[in-house]
Every structure is written in C-alpha cells, then in structure tokens.
C-alpha cells in the first residue's frame, strides 16, 4: 500500500500531450537518448544498437552492453511492462507482490516484503534491472546494484505520457522497440477515445481516495500520473502534497469535491458511501450532500503505472461520467 502512496509530480497531461504531439513517438521522450527513432523507418522495425546508453527517469545514464536476456524487475509495474513487450520469459526476478500476468508467479522473488534481497538479485545474474524511483526502491540499493556492475534503469512516471515514455524506454533497452511502439499506439488510441468522449462534458471536482491511515488522508499527488488520469477522464482532480500525497481534511473541505471516488474500497469493504458520509466533517462536501460517492474497484490498474493504466483510465472515466459510458 505504502508503495502507491508516494506519487509526485511534473507535467499536467495536456501540456505533456502537446509536447508528445510535436515529436515522433520514441524520440519525443526526454528519457530515451540514443534509441533509433522508430518513426523514421516505419517499414522496417527498428532495432536497438548495443552497447546502448539510455537516460532513466532519475536522470542517470545507464549503459546496457548487449540485448538483455535476463531481466530483474523490482516493481510490479515494471513486470507488467516487460511482459507486455513479450519478454516475460526473460524475467529472472520479480517482487513477491507480482501477480500479473499469471506466468510471473513462477519467477523467483527478489523483492520480499518491500525490501530488495541484493544477494538474490546477484544470483539471478541479470543483464538488466528495472527499479522504481522516488525511493520506492531506496537510492542506496540502486547505487549498490549499480556498483555491483548491473545496468539499473529507474522508472518513475509522473503522467500518462511519462508512462508511455517508460514503455518506450524499456522497449529500447530490451530491443523491443517495435512492440513498444505498437503497445503505446494502442494505449494512446484508447486514451484518446476516452478524452474525446468526455470532451465538452462538465468536469466535476473529483477527489480520489487512495487511503486513510490514522486520520491522514492520501489522494492523488499534485501533478501525479493519477491526477493526470482523472483530468483525462473528464474530472478536475483535487490533489494532495506532491511528495507525501496527503491532504488535510480542511483543505479537502475547502476544495469541496463534487465527486468522491473510493479507490481504497477495493481492499477494505468497510469503506462505503455510507461510512464516508458519516465521517466527521465530511457532511459539508457537495459530493456527500449529493450522494456522489462511488466505489472504484479497479484501484490496482489506476495506481500501477504499467500497460494496464488505460484500463484504469477507462474505469475512472466510467466512474466520473457514467452517463457517457453506458
């Protein structure tokens, strides 16, 4: 759970979309430096040229000596990206939290209870390690693995567009540029369809509840990819602190959500529209008075920045605009 709580910031989606529109996929991302641009040669699928130097989401330059046939993924989202790029067979280490796709259940766990077992990573002899940024995988661990001689790419997307860029980045790293281009294109088509469907509709002020722990309310962080998803799905996201993703109750009351989405209800059946309405102070909000409180059971695909993120986007759009998605 804690994994999903720290979701910081950068671009608003629309700004990112404009940027993306100006540059061909693959080379438009600031994260991919030396990969050949797929769009220059659409007829012949592009291949990565090794040794390949890429810049990851933490700004680190990472050199991959040869096309990696052994990959360790330190986050479920990375695992999903690798498998979506048809490289599931190359995974030699994943987290104990990985449950999708099903075939990764047989891959050795090298992240157990949220902490990386460095010995097991070394024993897996990876030719590429995919980590997660923003201290989800501690910087000290990333440094240690780098010092042991492994190429470590750290992924940390702040918007839907960053997620596309990360998929392209992994595609370049594992010589699957063509598959990555196809995947991103289909994701973009679905996202565009959502954006088109909600264009012109009213944009309710939307509060997405990631969780409430000991009175602290966690939501989408300011400029996080979750906020960008809500925005594309036709809502006006109410956001929390960019680093901690927490929001004070009085700030939430002042922001006056017109729609409350309960992502945490997917894990805790005691969280319902009725119990939320009964929380002290929450009765002030327009959403509570109007009864606009919706349980969202797709939290995993909404908060996991992988290829299924468009499933999350569609689920959000249906929750925000049920009338537009019969």
């Amino acid at each position, binding site marked *: 759970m804690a994994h999903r709580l720290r979701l910081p910031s950068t671009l608003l989606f629309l700004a990112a979309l404009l940027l993306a529109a100006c540059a061909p996929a693959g080379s438009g991302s600031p994260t991919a430096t030396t990969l050949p641009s797929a769009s220059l040669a659409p007829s012949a699928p592009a291949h990565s040229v090794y040794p390949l130097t890429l810049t990851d989401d933490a700004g680190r330059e990472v050199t991959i000596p040869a096309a990696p046939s052994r990959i360790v993924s330190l986050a479920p989202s990375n695992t999903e990206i690798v498998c979506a790029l048809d490289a599931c067979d190359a995974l030699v280490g994943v987290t104990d939290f990985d449950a999708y796709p099903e075939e990764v259940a047989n891959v050795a766990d090298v992240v157990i209870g949220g902490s990386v077992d460095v010995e097991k990573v070394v024993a897996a002899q990876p030719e590429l390690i995919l980590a997660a940024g923003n201290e989800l995988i501690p910087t000290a661990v990333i440094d240690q693995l780098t010092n042991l001689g492994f190429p470590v790419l750290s992924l940390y997307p702040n918007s839907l567009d960053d997620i596309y860029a990360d998929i392209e980045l992994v595609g370049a790293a594992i010589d699957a540029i063509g598959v990555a281009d196809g995947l991103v294109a289909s994701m973009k088509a679905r996202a565009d369809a959502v954006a088109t469907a909600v264009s012109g509709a009213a944009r309710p002020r939307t509060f997405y509840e990631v969780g409430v722990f000991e009175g602290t309310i966690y939501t989408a962080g300011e400029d996080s990819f979750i906020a960008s998803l809500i925005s594309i799905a036709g809502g006006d996201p109410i956001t929390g*602190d960019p*680093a901690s993703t927490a929001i004070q109750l009085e700030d939430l009351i002042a922001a006056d959500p017109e729609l409350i989405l309960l992502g945490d209800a997917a894990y805790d059946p005691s969280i319902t529209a009725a119990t939320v309405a009964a929380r002290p102070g929450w009765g002030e909000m327009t959403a509570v008075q109007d009864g606009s409180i919706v349980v969202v059971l797709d939290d995993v695909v909404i908060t996991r920045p992988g290829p299924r993120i468009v499933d999350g986007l569609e689920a959000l759009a249906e929750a925000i605009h049920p009338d537009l998605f019969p």
Partner: protein
Amino acid sequence: MRAAATAPTTAQSIRIGPSLTRATVVLGGGAILLLTAMVVAVAIGSVGVGIGDTVAVLGHRLLGLPLARTEVPGAESIIFDVRLPRVLTAMLVGGGLAVAGTVFQALLRNPMADPYIIGTAAGASLGAIAGLMAPLLLPALAIGVGSSWLGLGLVQLLAFTGGLGTVLLVYAVSRANGRVPVVTLLLTGYAVSSVLAAGVALLMFFSGQHLGAIFGWLMGSLAGAKWIHLAFAAPLLIISATLLVVRWRGLNLLLLGDGPAANLGIDVEREKLVLTILATLATSTVVAISGTIGFVGLVVPHVLRLSIGPDHRLLLPASVLYGATLLALADLGARLAGGIPVGILTALIGAPFFVWLLRRSRMVRPVVTP
C-alpha cells in the same frame, strides 16, 4: 600481561588483575568465537552458496588462489562484494559500540549510559537526515558531491561530523572552572539531544518519500555496507578502540569517583576528556556507516560485567570481541529474517536474555564500584 594471583602491587592497581588463564579463556575464546561467527555469517545468506565455494572465493580474492567455476552463478560477487563487507562492517560496528558503551558507563558512572548518551545519536541523526534530504533541496548535491569525499556520501560525512561535533559542543558547554562534572555532562547532553531531536522530527515531517530511508537509518541497518565505507571506518575504529583498551587503568580509577581518582594520581579532567573524545570518535564512525543501532552498546558491557567482572583490563578487549561477534550473528539473523533492521533483532532477542541474566545473577551490579 602480568601473571595471575599476584597481590595488588602498585597504588593504581586497585584490583587484582585478571589471571592469565582467565584472560586467555575469555579473550582466546572470544577470538575463536569471532572467527567462527565470521565464517558462518559469510557462508550463510538468502542465496545458498556452499562452504566449498565460499572458501574458494575468499581464497581467490584474498590470497590470489585460482578460482574454478563456482556452482552458484554470481557466487563470487555475492560472497566478496555483498556479504563480506557487510559481515566485517557488522563486526566493526558491534565491537566499536560495545567498547564505547563500556567506556561511557564507567566514565559517567551510569548504568543507563550507552555510546549515544551525550549527544552522538541526535547529532549524527540530524546530520544523516540532512544528508538524505539535501539532494532533494539542492539537486546539484545529488550529482556533484554525493559520491566524493573519501568515497563517503554526504549522509556518512554529515552523520560523522554531526555526532562528533555535538559531543564536543556538549563537553564545552558543560565545562565550568576547568572541570566537567559528570551530572552536568549528562544533563547537557540530554538537553542538546532534545533540541536536535526536535530538528530530526521536523525534517522527518517534511521528508515525504524519504521517510522510509530515514526510518531505516534511525533503526540502524548494515544493508548498505560496502568496501569503500570500511576503508574509512576501519582505521578510525581500530585506532580509537586500541587507544581505549590501553586506558583500562584510568577507567578503573574513575569508577571510584572524580575525587578518589585524583587522589590516586591521575589527571581526572584530562582523562575524562581523552576518553570522551576516543569513545565518541568510535561511536560517530560507527553511526556514519550503520545508522543508530541500539542495544549493543548498552547491554554488551553489562552482560560482560555480570559474566567476567568489572576490571576494565579484561572488560575492554572482551567487549570488542564479543560485541563484534554478537552483531555479526545478529545481522545474519536479520538478513535471514528478510532484511529487517538489525537493531530490531538485537533488542528483540537480546533484551529478554539480559533480563534473564540479571535475574540469574541475583545481584544488580550495573556499573560496579570495586
């Protein structure tokens, strides 16, 4: 070493020295235990590397022997780059904390004293957390400076200077008329620590995604052990521990109180200052590479005192050996328990053992006056 049952000979020797055989058993046994713990801790881990491969890798890297293909892929890296630096770090940290704890308990004549008591922990924590968060505030630091300075990161450097600087400050503030009364030192240390702890809490409040890293550091962990840190810490720890071990006579006398110690012919204030600086140097070095690992520095001295008596001539070297052994084994347990911070394990298992030992001894001699 002077032989066994001779009567007290000099005025300084207020106790009969440990008998040669007793010292041999305690220290020789300790050394054997330490070496055994080292081999075991290097040979065992979450990845099974056979003892043959372990020995082969160590022989190859340390003695230059040829290395045949190992059975486990990556065994060489696992043994030499992951486990060995970690085990050696655990030993240095355990030995350093135990000897520093022994010194502070005697120096302050306080059974609750541990190596951190007069400000090292609070100062080092504030430094380390500032180091953890600085790259967030000043991105240039993350790239330019983070990896320099004798191979130490900003965190290690600020923790070391923070711990050392805080104790020097506390000592200077406690000084009045050329003397540093023990009670003043303790209370000043407490007050300064409280201020710094408030700073720690404030930084934690604003730390966002770094909270996990900060929390892990405060609990103490050896997960980040690497050779480059050892190159910094090992010389400092070996020197400070050696200089402490040879000052056993002064510590024995200080247990009597400042006045009697002065009457018996030592320069009490100078002795206290030297001991404080050496013990703080050891503690700050340890904290810089491992965070604030609790319990070892408090309890190992007590356990040893209950077992082998209060004479620092034997107590100081024994605390190095047994502290090192204890932490190497505790860290092995922590690794096998899924990488939990070692401080949790030492307290969880060590504290009940300590209570049992206290009850069994039927006599509480926290800091013994001869």
